[in-house]
C-alpha cells in the first residue's frame, strides 16, 4: 500500500463503508443534538425549536441523574471484574489438554449466541424466581430460606446475568492470548525456580495485559448501553436505573423527547470521557 496509485484505490474502495457509517451514525446523532436544544413533547403538542441549555440543566440537576450515573458505574465495574477474572481462569482451564476440548469450547461460547432479552428472561424465571427458580430449590434443598434475588439484590442479579453473557467473549479473547504465549518462556521460568503462582503473576498475567485491555475497552463501550436486561427484569426499579434507562424513561414514559435527547448527548459525552480515561491508564499496554 505504498504507491500513490494503490493509496487512491484503497480510498475509493473504503468510500462506501465510510458513507454508510456516516449516514448511519451521524444523522441520528445530529437529530438527537437538534432535539436536545428543543422543548419537544409530542403528546402535549409542544414544539419550541430553541430553548438553549434548559434540557441539559434539568437533566443534570435532577436527583435521578447522579444515582443513575453511580448505578451505571457500579454495574459496568461489577460485570468487568467478573468477566475478566472468570475469563482468565476459564482461558487457563480451556488451554489444558483434555478430552472433548472442541466440544467444551463450543459450550463455553454458547451464551454469547443467546439474545439478551431471552437470557434475562431465562435467568429471571428459571433461576431467580422465588417460588420455582432453580436457586430456590437449591437453597431449600440445603435447608436455607429461598432468596428473592431480583428484589433483595437487584443490581447484583443484573450484573450476574450480563456477566454470564459476556464471559464467553472475554474467555475467547483471553484464550487466544494464552495460546500465543511461548511455552519456552514458562519452561524457562520453571527452571528459574518460579512456582505455578509466580509463573502466573510474572509471565502469564503480563502477557495477557494487552488482551485484558482490549476486553475492558470493548466491553465498557457495550456495557454502558445495557438496556434489555434491565427492562425485562426490574424495569429500572430498586436502584437499577442506569443512565441509558433514565434516558429511555424520559423519552418514552414521560414523553419528553427534548429532555431525553439531552440525556442521550450527556451519555455520549460521558462514554467518551470514560473511554479516553481508560485508554490513558491501560493504553500503555497497547504500544510495544
Amino acid at each position, binding site marked *: 500500500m505504498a504507491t500513490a496509485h494503490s493509496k487512491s484505490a484503497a480510498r475509493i474502495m473504503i468510500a462506501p463503508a465510510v458513507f454508510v457509517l456516516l449516514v448511519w451514525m451521524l444523522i441520528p446523532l445530529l437529530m438527537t443534538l437538534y432535539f436536545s436544544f428543543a422543548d419537544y413533547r409530542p403528546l402535549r403538542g409542544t414544539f419550541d425549536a430553541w430553548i438553549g441549555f434548559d434540557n441539559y440543566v434539568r437533566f443534570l440537576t435532577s436527583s435521578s441523574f447522579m444515582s443513575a450515573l453511580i448505578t451505571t458505574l457500579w454495574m459496568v465495574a461489577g460485570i468487568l471484574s467478573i468477566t475478566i477474572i472468570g475469563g482468565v481462569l476459564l482461558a487457563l482451564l480451556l488451554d489444558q489438554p483434555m478430552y472433548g476440548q472442541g466440544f467444551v469450547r463450543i459450550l463455553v461460547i454458547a451464551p454469547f449466541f443467546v439474545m439478551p432479552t431471552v437470557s434475562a428472561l431465562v435467568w429471571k424465571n428459571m433461576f431467580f424466581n422465588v417460588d420455582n427458580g432453580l436457586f430456590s430449590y437449591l437453597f431449600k434443598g440445603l435447608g436455607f430460606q429461598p432468596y428473592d434475588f431480583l428484589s433483595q439484590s437487584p443490581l447484583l442479579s443484573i450484573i450476574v446475568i450480563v456477566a454470564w453473557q459476556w464471559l464467553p467473549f472475554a474467555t475467547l479473547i483471553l484464550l487466544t492470548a494464552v495460546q500465543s504465549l511461548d511455552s*519456552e518462556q514458562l*519452561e*524457562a521460568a*520453571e*527452571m528459574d*525456580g518460579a512456582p505455578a503462582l509466580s509463573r502466573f503473576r*510474572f509471565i502469564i498475567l503480563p502477557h495477557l495485559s494487552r488482551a485484558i485491555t482490549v476486553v475492558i475497552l470493548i466491553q465498557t463501550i457495550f456495557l454502558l448501553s445495557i438496556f434489555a436486561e434491565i427492562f425485562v427484569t426490574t424495569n429500572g426499579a430498586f436502584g437499577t436505573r442506569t443512565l441509558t434507562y433514565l434516558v429511555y424513561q424520559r423519552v418514552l414514559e414521560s414523553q419528553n423527547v427534548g429532555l431525553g435527547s439531552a440525556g442521550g448527548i450527556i451519555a455520549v459525552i460521558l462514554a467518551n470521557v470514560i473511554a479516553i480515561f481508560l485508554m490513558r491508564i491501560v493504553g500503555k499496554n497497547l504500544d510495544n
Partner: protein
Amino acid sequence: MGRIVLKGVRKAFGDVEVIPPLDLEIEDGEFVVFVGPSGCGKSTLLRLIAGLEDVSSGDIEIDERNVSTVSPAKRGLAMVFQSYALYPHMSVRKNIAFPLRMSKMDKAEQDKRIAHAASILNLTDYLERRPGQLSGGQRQRVAIGRAIVREPAAFLFDEPLSNLDAALRHGMRVEIGELHKDLATTMIYVTHDQIEAMTMADKIVVLRAGYIEQVGSPLELYHKPRNLFVAGFIGSPTMNLFEGATAAEHGAHTIGVRPEHLVPSKTEGLWKGRVGLSEHLGSDTFLHIHDTGLTETITVRAGGDIDLHHNDTVYLTPEADKIHRFDAQGLRIA
C-alpha cells in the same frame, strides 16, 4: 560440581519410543555436545536431564543424587533455549535477576551477581532495555546471563546459536567456549551442526534416532569413526565412500576416504576422473570429480593455489594409512 549420569534412561511419547534405553556419563566440568540430525531426540534428551520431561524409565543422577522425579527448579541446572525465552515485559536487568528473585536472594548479592554477569557478557549498557530492543546476539547473551547468575551445577544449551547469522554464530561460539574455560562448569550443548560440535566439545555424543552411535573426543570421532553414520556425519566436506571392488581390495565392504586425504595430480595417480566444479575458497579448493567409475562424485580438498578447472582430467591417490574400512553392517574394521 556437576557430574551427570544417565542410567537406562528411556522416553516414549505414547507408543513412539523417542529415546531407547540409554547410558551416559558426563564428568564434572566437561563440555559435552549432543549432535545428530534433526528429530533424532537431542532436545528430548536435554529436556529429560532438565526435568522438563519425565523419564519413561531409568534414572538420572546429578552428583550422586537421583533426580529422576525432582522438579526442574530443584535440580540446580540452568538452561538456555533456542528461542532465548526471555521475558519480554521485563528489562534486561529484571530478566537476569528473575531466578535470583525467585530464590529470595538478598538485594545486594543480586546486584553484585548481575553486575558481574553483565560485565562478562558486555551487557552493562543495556541493563535497562527491554529484550525487544536488543539484537539477536545481545538477546542470546541475556539468556546466558540469566543462566550464569544462578551458579548452576551445569548449563544446558539447546541449539543456542541457530537463530544467529553466520558471523555472529562464530563470535558467540568463541564466547561460549571461553565462558566454559572461565567458569569450568559442566556444559551440555545440543546442536545439529557438526562444526559447532567439533570446535567446542571436550566430548561429543553422536545420536541417531535416539541411539548413541559414538561417544568420544572430536579427534577420536574424526580419526576413528565407529560406523558409517559417524563417518559421514563428522567432517566437512563429508567423507567419500566406496563400495564394491575398490573396497574388496582392502578387505572391506565399504571404504571411506576424507576429501583432505586424497592427493590430486594432473599426470598420474590411482584413479582417473574429470573435474566438475572447483570451489576456490582461497585457503582451500574443493574439487568435485566425476566419471571415475567408482561413485557418482568424489570430493577432494586441495591447496588454495591448485590449477585445476572444469573438465580438466585429474588423477587421485588416497593416502594409504588414512583409509577407513567398514564391514557389511557398516561397523568399523579396526
